[in-house]
């Protein structure tokens, strides 16, 4: 049996450790040695085995989140750069008296409104980055897309419905910073899932492939939930 189907780590050899792992599996925390080490925080683009307090809307009680992915932070650089430029714009505009024909009270209001709109722009861009998530659980993949502030699209597919997983580097920066798109072909209602510009796409594709194999083994063994 290849190691990926094994529920024990390579170092565990004693009967005691086997018992302890079995009890872990009974509690629903199956050990998957193909997963990267547990890491990530709330702002991370690549969260592995997040804490139990992190849950999503349609999560089943026994379902375990293995990975939460969002676009690599470097992809946010354009709007961060624009925000920095816009932040200093009023100070620069003092040397170009475009507003000098307006009364002083109007000039003050313009600056206040400028920062108000800028603040909302930054917050909105942050939200769009933060909540466009791809979630991999032990049972399925979930893709959450907020198209804008009004419209959202949530799609999911069972792991056993995955037919093909591929990945590519999104662009030149993707090659440098190791991020890219992971494309998942499924036999579910939504035929294709794209995890856009996620960090370490090769690892994500590998995890999905191994989960698919694990699911098939469970199906053969009759352990499907």
């Amino acid at each position: 049996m290849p190691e990926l189907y094994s529920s024990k780590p390579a170092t565990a050899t004693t009967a005691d450790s086997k018992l302890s792992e079995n009890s872990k599996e009974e509690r629903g925390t199956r050990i998957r040695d193909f997963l990267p080490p547990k890491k990530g925080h709330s702002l991370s683009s690549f969260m592995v085995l997040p804490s139990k307090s992190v849950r999503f809307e349609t999560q089943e009680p026994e379902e375990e989140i293995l990975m939460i992915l969002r676009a690599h932070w470097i992809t946010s650089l354009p709007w961060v750069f624009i925000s920095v430029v816009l932040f200093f714009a009023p100070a620069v505009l003092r040397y170009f008296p475009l507003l000098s024909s307006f009364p002083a009270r109007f000039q003050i209001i313009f600056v206040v409104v400028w920062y108000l709109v800028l603040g909302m722009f930054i917050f909105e861009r942050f939200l769009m980055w933060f909540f466009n998530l791809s979630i991999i659980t032990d049972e399925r993949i979930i893709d959450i897309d907020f198209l804008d502030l009004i419209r959202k699209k949530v799609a999911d597919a069972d792991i056993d419905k995955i037919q093909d997983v591929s990945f590519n580097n999104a662009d030149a920066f993707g090659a440098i910073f190791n991020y890219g798109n992971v494309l998942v072909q499924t036999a579910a209602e939504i035929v294709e899932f794209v995890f856009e510009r996620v960090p370490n796409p090769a690892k994500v594709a590998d995890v999905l492939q191994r989960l698919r194999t694990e699911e098939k083994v469970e199906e053969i063994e009759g352990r499907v939930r």
Partner: protein
Amino acid sequence: MEEIIKTLLAIDIWQIGKIFVLIGLGVYLFFAFLIIRQVRLMTEIVEGILTHPLRVVSWLFFLFSIFVFIFTLLVL
């Protein structure tokens, strides 16, 4: 004709400017309220990651936009 010209000349352009600024801030206020609803929706879909800080920030934006609206009403 003369009456019309006199009336037009009597219009305070800055008062019209004030009305436009207030309309813009009114639209912004609606947008800020929309953000509160949206943040609530977003944090309900995925719970446990920065749920409370994001909700607080969205409310702060809304309250700050109310403050700016009132400030504009008084200053302009």
